[in-house]
């Protein structure tokens, strides 16, 4: 069967239905009388039966109330009672052994169909039907009938009658909504959620069946019980325009507008991404994660946005794949058993129906045993993972942050490169890098708190980042948190704090561009053409000071609106070094003043004397640098000195 196709979907539904039906039949046979006063039960009296193909068609009279209250002799057809055509499958018919005058109770989820130009409504999906015996008389009669076989007329269907799918008078919504009447019978106008008599809980627990029975129009009263596996924010592209003021996007609270989303799973292994309300900021996402992940919740008032498949939504499915495929065990209070079943190949994206959100999370309850918390690994382990597009979670110290500086790209779509380490990388002597680069794409929504924490260099929890092709990327559905979640399986990962100063790999022949490294060497040259210095405000650091109109010897800062009495001199210089760790390359380092004491002294010396000689031969020791580029012809490495956070 096609993965993710309609056939596979029906198969899944069918399997569940089958076990529900056999359970029902068993219950009926064992004599349990199921009370008929539950809502949604259709009570009919059979008038006539015939067969078409393997379907049994019963012309019936719909009864308002339980016939136990009517006298058994009451066989007169009341002209007021509505007539229905009820269809039964061969198996159901064999189980019922109905005859005219029998009263049948049909339990939900049955379906009603109204055919154009026909008077009589048709009732289908009548799997859960039971004959009701009214009195002792009936029981005796039943036993006698059971021995004789009743002859039922069979209608032969003409092949000449083909089906016309297009409507000559195509009435739109009105027609379809009339025809798609779900279970609630017309006599019962209550909006109660349907109750299957077999269900252990009053609320439906299958996403697939809910989608199936209510249609794309959405379901209002019906509730589905699911487990929240993940909470995250997705960038909201649609709502974006409406929030802009003029041409300038309103970037309050650190960035983009986003939608709060849940990845939920039902008891049958079906997943769904539920898109909830738009948030103006992601502050509070950490709260939602903490309070909601792992808990059960009831969804109502949702509508289907899309059915998507593995091939089209790799990111979403890489997250779904974290959860091992489990099936409910055979016994009542069963453990979930992990199976060799393939993981799901399609899922639904649901969204809120016209402003009303019904998501009731049972925060007090226990964590569901379906919940798959993020498995935390040390970075060393993650670097060793074989696969591609694997979701991974880790706790890391951010050493340096670099924003993509292409000016053509708008702020909200800029990528960021983070350099992260942990004790598993720091404590190893050789063979693996000490620092790993993590790119954060624009689609990974960051809260203001996180953005601030990143500039301050903190330890952050990266939940569900993507690993592939030797890189860790934070994309959609990755969440960065300030605190480790309460529930996560550490699997022996060393999550201890870093002891001692952080060490970087030294520049050598294996160093790559866009990485950070440590550097030591001797000054062999200076790029005089790019050397310059400028004064900055000692209060606010503003580098664009102006000359005071009153006194041309003083400098004025616009931002502080004051004269700068003690300007700080900033300098930029490109220095060529000879590095013993990478002797064959020309190493060019852009150094900044006020970073290292040594450089300051050196530069001051240089500027005072304007003598390159004075800096030549000077030892430059263990600078932290960002590698801009590495070229092989000529063999040159261009770096920039950085400050670790």
């Amino acid at each position, binding site marked *: *069967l*096609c993965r993710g*196709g*309609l*056939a*596979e*979907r*029906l*198969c899944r*539904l*069918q399997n569940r*239905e089958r076990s529900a039906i056999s359970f029902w039949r068993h219950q009926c046979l064992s004599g349990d009388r199921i009370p008929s006063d539950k809502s949604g039960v259709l009570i009919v009296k059979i008038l*006539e039966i015939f067969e*078409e*193909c*393997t*379907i049994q*068609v019963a*012309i019936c009279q719909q009864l308002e109330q339980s016939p136990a209250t009517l006298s058994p002799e009451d066989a007169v057809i009341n002209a007021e009672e509505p007539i229905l*055509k009820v*269809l039964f*499958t061969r198996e159901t018919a064999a189980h019922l052994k109905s005859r005219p005058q029998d009263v049948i109770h049909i339990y939900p989820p049955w*379906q009603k*169909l*109204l*055919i*154009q130009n*026909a008077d009589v409504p*048709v009732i*289908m*999906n009548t799997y859960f039907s039971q004959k009701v015996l009214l009195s002792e008389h009936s029981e005796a009669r039943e036993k006698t009938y059971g021995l004789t076989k009743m002859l039922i007329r*069979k*209608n*032969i*269907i*003409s*092949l*000449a*009658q*083909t*089906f*016309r*799918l*297009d*409507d000559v008078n195509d009435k*739109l919504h009105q*027609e*379809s909504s009339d*025809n*798609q009447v779900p279970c609630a019978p017309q006599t019962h106008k209550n909006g109660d959620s349907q109750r299957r008599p077999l269900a252990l809980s009053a609320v439906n627990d299958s996403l697939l069946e809910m*989608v*199936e*029975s*209510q*249609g*794309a129009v959405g379901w209002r009263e019906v509730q589905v019980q699911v487990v929240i596996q993940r909470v995250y924010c997705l960038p909201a592209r649609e709502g974006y325009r409406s929030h802009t003021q003029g041409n300038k996007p309103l970037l309050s609270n650190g960035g983009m507008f986003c939608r709060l989303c849940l990845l939920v799973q039902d008891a049958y292994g079906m997943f769904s991404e539920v898109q909830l309300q738009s948030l103006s900021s992601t502050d509070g996402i950490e709260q939602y994660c903490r309070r909601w992940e792992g808990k059960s919740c009831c969804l109502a008032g949702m509508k*289907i946005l899309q*059915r998507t498949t593995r091939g089209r939504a790799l990111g979403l499915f890489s997250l779904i794949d974290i959860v091992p495929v489990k099936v409910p065990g055979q016994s009542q209070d069963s453990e979930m058993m992990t199976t060799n079943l393939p993981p799901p190949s399609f899922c639904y994206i649901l969204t809120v129906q016209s402003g009303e959100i019904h998501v009731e999370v049972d925060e007090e309850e226990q964590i569901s045993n379906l919940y798959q918390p993020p498995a935390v690994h040390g970075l060393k382990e993650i670097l060793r993972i074989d696969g591609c597009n694997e979701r991974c979670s880790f706790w890391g110290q951010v050493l340096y942050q670099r924003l993509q500086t292409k000016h053509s790209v708008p702020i909200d779509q800029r990528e960021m490169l983070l350099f992260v380490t942990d004790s598993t990388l720091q404590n190893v002597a050789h063979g693996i890098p000490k620092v790993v680069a993590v790119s954060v794409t624009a689609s990974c929504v960051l809260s203001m708190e996180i953005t601030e924490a990143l500039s301050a260099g903190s330890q952050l929890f990266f939940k569900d980042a993507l690993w592939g092709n030797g890189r860790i990327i934070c994309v959609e559905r990755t969440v960065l948190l300030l605190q480790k979640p309460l529930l996560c399986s550490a699997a022996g990962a060393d999550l201890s704090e870093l002891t001692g100063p952080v060490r970087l790999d030294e520049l050598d022949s294996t160093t790559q561009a866009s990485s950070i490294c440590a550097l030591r060497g001797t000054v062999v040259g200076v790029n005089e053409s790019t050397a310059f210095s400028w004064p900055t405000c000692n209060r606010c650091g503003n580098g664009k000071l102006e000359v005071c109109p009153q006194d041309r010897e003083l400098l004025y800062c616009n931002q502080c609106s004051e004269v700068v009495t003690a300007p700080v001199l900033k300098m930029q210089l490109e220095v060529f070094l000879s590095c013993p760790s990478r002797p064959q390359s020309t190493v060019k380092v852009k150094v900044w003043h006020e970073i290292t004491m040594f450089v300051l002294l050196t530069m001051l010396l240089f500027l005072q004397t304007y003598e390159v000689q004075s800096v030549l031969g000077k030892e430059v020791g263990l600078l932290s640098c960002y590698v801009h580029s590495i070229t092989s012809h000529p063999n040159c490495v261009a770096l920039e000195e950085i400050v670790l956070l």
Partner: protein
Amino acid sequence: MDSCTLPGVAEELLREIRKAFQETSQAEMFSCRLKFIFGPSAVPALDLVDQRSVTRLRSPSGRILYQVLGSSGKLYTCYSSCHFCTCPAFGFSVLQKSESLLCKHILAVYLSQAMGACQELAVSEEQLTNILLAEEEDEG
């Protein structure tokens, strides 16, 4: 009450699928009903639709024929003017035993029509005739 019920039900169901598909590009809501009415043909028919196995052949004079690529790789022909398919299941279940309304190929044709999943092929009059005659020869 003497006229048949099932064809009307089947037609209505297929119409609903088509309408839903036109409005929302989803035919999700009807699998259960399909299963109820068409029984064991439902899943195989949906699979044929998933795999885009149905082709509508049209000749210049306006004659239409459907060809369905079965799971075994064999090509079956379904008529458009009446319910007929060249597959053995049709001969057995529909003609002989009157157990099914349609075979899975005819159902796949209808579903493909409803969901816009038919492949279209323009053929010449001669080609269409040959296809029809070829079926006859096989039977003979």
